[in-house]
């Protein structure tokens, strides 16, 4: 019986080793946004947590302001985010529907080193940080944009 048990452990270990090799392969061949990361038990993409409620107002026409981001790491290992890149239309919150021309642009951030802790104890690792001066507001910003909170879609690039 013990012998049989030991054989099973060995097989599982080998399978586990293959699985991890396969994971590494998948990681090299995707941008981190594919379905490969959605499988349970595989490495997963980073996401963000809504922090609009706690964002400090710093923008007004003609100046740059700060951007607040909270990165969620569902992986059981720490990830270092090296770049934050805008990838969509920046919009104002629903309470500022008249703010159709926000005038807000995001300056892509690179050479970052934002370490997002690993998931631990069933809780994703998170990092909240401020990208100082990463957003700017032009004079085109409509009057209705006063006090608005802007959602800035981004792509996160990182290493683990």
């Amino acid at each position: 019986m013990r012998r049989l048990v030991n054989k099973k452990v060995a097989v599982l270990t080998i399978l586990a080793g293959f699985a991890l090799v396969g994971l590494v392969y998948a990681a090299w061949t995707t941008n981190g946004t594919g379905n490969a990361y959605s499988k349970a038990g595989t490495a997963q993409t980073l996401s963000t947590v809504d922090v609009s409620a706690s964002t400090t107002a710093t923008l007004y026409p003609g100046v740059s302001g700060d951007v607040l981001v909270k990165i969620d790491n569902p992986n059981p290992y720490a990830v270092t985010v090296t770049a934050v890149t805008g990838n969509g239309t920046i919009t104002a919150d629903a309470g500022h529907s008249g703010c159709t021309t926000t005038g807000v642009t995001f300056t892509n951030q690179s050479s970052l080193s934002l370490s997002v802790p690993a998931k631990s104890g069933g809780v994703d690792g998170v990092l909240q940080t401020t990208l100082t001066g990463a957003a700017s507001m032009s004079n085109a910003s409509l009057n209705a944009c006063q006090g608005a909170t802007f959602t800035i879609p981004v792509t996160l690039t990182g290493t683990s």
Partner: protein
Amino acid sequence: MRGLHRTIVLALAIALAAPAAGASASWPGGGSGSQSAKAVSMPTGNTPTAAVSNRSVTVSWTGSTLPGGAAISTYVVNRYDTNGNAQTIGSACSGTVSATTCTESSVPGGTWKYTVAPTLSNWTGGESGQSASVTVASPSLSFSSSTTVTSLPTTLNGTIAAFVGGQTVTFRLDDASTGTVLSGTLSPTPVPSGGGSSITVTIPAGTTNGAHTVYAVGSSGDVASAAITVAVPYTTTTTAWDLRDASSGSESNQSAASAFVDTRTFATGVWPTAFNTNNYLEFNQNAPLPSGFTVTGGTFVFNFAAGASGDTACFWFEVRRASTGAVVGTHGSSWIPVGCVTGTTLQSFSTAISELNTTDLANDNRIRVYARESAGKSITVERANVTGSTPSTSFTLYPLSYTDASTGTPATTNWALAASGGSAYTTASNWPGSFTANDYLKVTFPSYIPTTATVTGGTFKLAYRPTASGHNACYYIEVYSGATLIGTHGSTTTPVSCNSTSTYTTDTVSLPEINTPARANGAIVKAYFWISGSGSRTTDNDLATLSVNYQ
């Protein structure tokens, strides 16, 4: 067995260690999501203060700062009336003001409040509370002279105030943009910054009686006005061309022959068959109009007919000054007559005489008619009037006399009642020996009084005498407005006067009952006569006029 366990543990260790090392080296992925940035809100403006200087208001306020302390450098200033209605704000405070003070110039008169709102590009902050209200005076014009003008021209003295400085000022009557420009002065000129100057302005001759408005119009658009009343007293004297003789007890029409379309006509002498400048017929019209006014619509109305059936009579005419004979205008010619009539049926010709454009010309009017008659006969004249309008009333002029030079030899006939001397009207029948209700002379006067005038009484003049010596003629009068008796002067027992001489007696009877334009225009006077003795008991009547005083 023991050795196998160690192998498994090592393998697991390797397996667990290897992925960690491999992930660290090869996990270049990332993720996606969103981040947040937030805009500040503009502050509310600080309540401004406002200070008035003539027509300028200086608005000042404390600058606003953005959350975080950045100063705001541009503002929007608004002005409201006391009901909270937003006004269009003037220069220097309009648009975006890059300061914390501005002076609105040329502010309209009124009570105003100001607000300020900070602005930044498209953003505008909350509007401040309203300033304390400030009152800006409206441009004004006032006269120190009496504003009731009783003679023309008259120069009025006065002042203007609260005009925007730097303007020159013109004056107009009754309409600020299209009214007659009045001569005037401004001292000092242009208007100083304080907004006030002394003025003079002249109300010209020809200004109609009644209420008027004088406007002071600034070169930058300020307008002020003041009311005046022109109440120049005028007296219009006219005879009557409508004469009804009831000396027999029943009326007969004895009106002037060329005054009306009626049965009363006259025949000229015989005309040549071709136009000739020595053959003419002149009408000197009466002069009932106040001087100094414009006349529009001047028209000569001439009713005539040829001397016999089948004959053709034609005419052209000149408008002349009665005083000098100077030709003012010519209508038609020897080649192109104004009109022709074939046969003896009277026809009317109305010809515009626009050259008759002032009351002074109208009051000095003569019409000279040149005619020809195809058979060299006389023509029949029924009417020769001039019509037109002053700014106050329309009028018809009637001939005081006509001069018939149809044959080349002038002969003048005066309307008997128009003036003393020259000719008189002798009643058609003998008067009774005592007053009766059916025996009178009735004259109806034409209409020359503006319907808006204030009439302050009339005067009736009558000159008469017994035609034959040895008689005593007496009369009294009744005054009518239409069919309504409005006054009686003298009576059957106390005549206005009696005359038993061969010299005309001229009575001047005051008619206070002529106190409205309606009573003055078309006033009728009936003069009841009786005469003593027997035989010829007619009277000669040399003058019948009505003078009306009005403003």
